[in-house]
């Protein structure tokens, strides 16, 4: 089979992937219009699309998107960067591992949203509290993966570096860091998804803006179509960021076979 033919087949398959979601939406629309279900509680896709358009036109949805994205990205970075650094340190120095390991074991399983009241107490109702709760959620998967990545580097690379006279600085910056990079990225992807979950959930209870707030306030006003708009927006943002993330990973880890 020629390569262009293979590419055509891939494109065809991607189009076919759209078939079932579109079919589902159509069935949904038809069912609601046929009078199955109460349109006030279960809006038709066309109702949601209309509301989506109205919320965009009023500037409300774009603003909420910006606010939520800022909280998620800021929190993600605030948690991920120390997570990577500390995870690598744990692998390099036994002392750090002995201090940090039991703390991870104790703190990782705690639902981070359970900390929200404490965080509100500490940081108030402002932006900081949301960023901090996202950061805490993002921190743990990153530190665990960075540590695992650095601790499990194939021994031969450590041997080579030692035999060729690498100082501990070179060992860290040229060998351990890069050797751990594939697992660090795996941790970052998990952390990104967790950031979305925690970020929007924190907005349910502790914010007056953002997509999470849009979903929660719509529920209180029983605007079910607006709720769906919020949920769909989060889904779209998730797809966009994870695609972007894969692209970055390909650029940063070119040696990883595609």
């Amino acid at each position, binding site marked *: 089979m020629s390569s262009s033919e293979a590419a055509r087949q891939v494109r065809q398959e991607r189009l076919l992937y759209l078939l079932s979601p579109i079919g589902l939406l159509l069935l949904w629309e038809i069912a609601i219009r046929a009078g199955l279900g109460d349109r006030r509680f279960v809006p038709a896709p066309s109702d949601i699309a209309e509301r989506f358009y109205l919320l965009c036109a009023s500037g409300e949805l774009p603003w909420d998107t910006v606010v939520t994205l800022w909280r998620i990205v800021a929190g993600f970075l605030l948690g991920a960067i120390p997570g990577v650094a500390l995870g690598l340190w744990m692998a390099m120095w036994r002392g750090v591992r002995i201090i940090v390991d039991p703390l991870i074991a104790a703190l990782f399983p705690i639902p981070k949203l359970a900390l929200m009241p404490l965080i509100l107490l500490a940081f108030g109702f402002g932006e900081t509290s949301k960023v901090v709760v996202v950061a805490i959620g993002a921190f743990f998967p990153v530190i665990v993966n960075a540590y695992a990545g650095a601790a499990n580097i194939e021994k*031969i*690379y450590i*041997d*080579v*570096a*030692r*035999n*060729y*006279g*690498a*100082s501990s600085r*070179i060992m860290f910056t*040229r*060998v351990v860091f*890069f*050797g751990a*990079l594939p697992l660090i990225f795996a941790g970052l992807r998990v952390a990104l998804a967790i950031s979305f979950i925690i970020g929007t959930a924190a907005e349910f209870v502790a914010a007056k803006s953002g997509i999470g707030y849009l979903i929660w306030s719509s529920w209180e006003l029983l605007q079910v179509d607006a709720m769906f708009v919020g949920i769909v927006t989060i889904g779209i943002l998730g797809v966009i960021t994870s695609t972007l993330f894969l692209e970055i990973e390909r650029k940063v*880890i*070119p*040696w990883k*076979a595609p």
Partner: protein
Amino acid sequence: MAEPPRKGARIAIAGLSRMFEGPRGSVQALTGIDLSIAPGEFLCIVGPSGCGKSTLLRILAGLDRQTSGKVSIDAAGWAVTNAMVFQESGLFPWMSVEQNVGFGLMTRGMPATERAPRVEAAMRLVGLTQFRHHFPHQLSGGMRQRGAIARAFVTDPAVLLMDEPFAALDAQNRTILQEELVRIWETTGKTVVYITHSIDEALFLGDRAAIMTAHPGRIKEIIDIPFPHPRNLMELSVTPSFGTLKLKIWRVLEDEVNRARASEDAA
């Protein structure tokens, strides 16, 4: 032709032993190793798997320490004492061929402008110049092993330590690389300690072969390999003296292999 190459390091090993503490008591990996290697000599260490030959090489490389005994490597006048070529190339997957080859110079603080011509020369030596920007996963096994050899030679070490560097290659590639290695060695005068489990390989490459035996690992016999250099490996392999020497080494090893199997059966 340039000036005759200076000779590599002299190595003296006396009464060396290495014990490993395992879950079922201690294991004597090496015992009573006495060995002196002349400057510029190509010494092959031949032995069955598990005889501790890799451990001996790791001790020479400074990656492991003996339990008792003495090792001295006299590398006066050489900036770098030793460089090792590992069984699997051990090229860093995240570095290009060029960066990999220059690694041992970078770690020693040589500025990039000074590194470049030496890296270039080393890559030319092994025929990898067109692949300088490739990553190791884009190369064949033979090319990766060439890169590992360039990485070792670029540091200009007094001793080259090689741990079955061509064992994972197919026969054709192995023969080509063996010939290249001999050619490079003949022009550089380095001391080479080369580990192999293949008698043929030892006879192709070495000035002497140290035959090791297992449980505990020790040197049973050291055999001179008197074939003149430069050697043509294929022509050499069909000479009667090659066959005679091969059989002689095999007889030494055979006893040991049988003895090891007998003791395993008894256990």
